[in-house]
């Protein structure tokens, strides 16, 4: 609500050794929107998220969070602005779900202090919203893949940041929980004005939930803007090399995408 948050990248470049991954990305993420990042495998989507939260250093260019270089800000400060749900998650130690969620409050709890009443309150609210109440004192190591992913997304929500970055957060989830999670995030965008930036493989989901879409290919932005406009038949063909039909949906929300096969068939 009236937050002045802004997130802009300015000519970003990044490479893994000799192999370039991001090749000149300048994009402005409009605050208060649900933004999907789409593109084929290896196009640099995950790398872009890492650069945005400042856990990778660009070889050239800058990420500006509220006008300041994210690499120059204190890590704790950034952690209060942006939360990340990585693609891969693995844990070896039997923390309870409650303990993992509470770790999301780390940037707010001073060293040698214990969590406050408010921290516990937020954890409980989010747990309820993500239907994790019954697992709250189970060991995370004993949950199923989909349940663990729900915990990991919930942990990022507990961090209570104006920007929430997700990297295929629902890849192991069943369709009901996927829809529930995205509906919940959508509500946060609408009601609290947070910005969600979500890497998505499922274009139908992107069509359902996103206001804006960033389409990436070979480490560059192919197109960026309104979801309906960006997810056009032409763009899908150029970015993913598949033939699709995009149809407006009068009953549901937005539009539908039907796939007809690979382009060079």
């Amino acid at each position, binding site marked *: 609500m009236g937050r002045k948050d802004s997130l802009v990248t300015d000519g970003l470049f990044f490479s893994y050794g000799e192999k370039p991954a991001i090749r000149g990305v300048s994009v402005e993420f409009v605050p208060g929107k649900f933004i999907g990042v789409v593109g084929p495998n290896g196009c640099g989507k995950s790398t872009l998220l*890492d650069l945005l*939260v400042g*856990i990778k250093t660009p070889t050239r260019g800058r990420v500006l969070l509220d006008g300041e270089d994210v690499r120059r800000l*204190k*890590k*704790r*400060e*950034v*952690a*209060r602005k*942006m*939360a*990340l749900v*990585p693609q*891969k*998650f*693995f*844990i*070896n*130690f*039997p*923390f*309870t779900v*409650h*303990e*993992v969620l509470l*770790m*999301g409050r*780390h*940037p707010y709890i001073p*060293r040698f202090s214990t969590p406050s*009443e408010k921290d*516990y*309150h937020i954890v*409980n609210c989010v747990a309820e919203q993500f239907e994790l109440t019954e697992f*709250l*004192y189970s060991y995370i190591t004993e949950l199923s893949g989909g349940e663990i992913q729900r915990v*990991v997304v919930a*942990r990022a929500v507990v*961090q209570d940041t104006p920007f929430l970055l997700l990297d295929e957060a629902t890849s192991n989830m069943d369709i009901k929980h996927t829809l529930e999670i995205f509906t919940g995030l959508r509500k946060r965008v609408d009601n609290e004005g947070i910005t969600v930036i979500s890497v998505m493989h499922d274009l139908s989901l992107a069509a359902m939930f996103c206001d804006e879409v960033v389409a990436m290919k070979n480490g560059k932005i192919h197109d960026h803007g309104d979801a309906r406009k960006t997810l056009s038949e032409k763009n899908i063909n150029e970015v993913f090399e598949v033939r699709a039909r995009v149809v407006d949906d009068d009953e549901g929300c937005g539009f539908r995408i039907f796939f007809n096969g690979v382009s060079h068939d």
Partner: protein
Amino acid sequence: MGETLPGVSGTEGLRIILFLSVALVVAVVLSTAMGYIRIPVIDVIRIVWFKITGNTDALKQLNGVFPYVVTDVRLPRILTAAIVGAGLGMSGAIFQGILLNPLADPYTLGISSGAAFGASLALVLNISFLSLYTVPLFAFLGAMLTLVAVLSISSVRGQMSSNNLILAGVIVAAILSAGIGFLKYIADEEVSIIIFWLMGSFASKTWYEVFLTGSTVLLGFAVFLFYSRDLNIISLGDQISDSLGVSTGRVKKVLLVAASLVTAVCVSVSGIIGFVGLIIPHLMRFVLGPDNQKLIPASALGGALLLLVADTTTRSVLPHEIPIGILTSLLGGPFFCYIFRKKELGRIHGT
């Protein structure tokens, strides 16, 4: 909608740590009373008290040998054993936490092999310019050189992955083992001294060792506790811990070096005592959960108790001293199996 405060586990954890602390103090007093010369427990307490308060008149009224046996013979050995146990126990917890691997222990990075190689070298070459402290010094240098080698082999462009660290540790340890084998081969008659050193012992330790290990372990403990919450966050993976405001790379390096230093000092004083650093953190994790803020103090106390009990057993219960490394495994192993079974069975029936 009531707030569920997880105070249950919190206070229970503190209670267990308090219990372990009391048990450790009791164990120190009891083991000081035990030995070839039996000393009444009350006299042990009196002697320590009189020594602390500087009451020499009262000391003279006790049996003439007792004060000497307690303060110059037994206490240094007992305290060294407990401190080394604490150092190995908590370093084990740290290594497991940083390497995200419950199978790691203080020796995973080859520190024990480095220490063993250094000690063997001093023994074989008969170097003794520092008299009694030559072997510990060489052991320490060996351990630190190994650490430097492992860290430089495993770091690629300033980043160290757990897998690289473990692999580099295994490789360096293998090379050093071959070196130790060679030294044993050419050692001839000294080979038994090497073997005995390798198996560890607390015999004839002095206050010098108590202060050396004590200050190192205390310093390490402070560093570990300072970063204990960061270590919890690190178990969520580098990406999440970085995005939660933890300087993951720096914290890992600081803890790695601190834990290695503690281990190196312990090993150089006591020889190689296995098992404590691997099993104690596991045992404590079974009981207290993986929260490092509780796990680190509990592992220190648990390690101290195990080594103290083992050392007292070999010193005063058994007819002959046997190497303490053997005894720790014989005492700790079955106990671990018992707890493990109980926990696993409890989980099946409990849910």
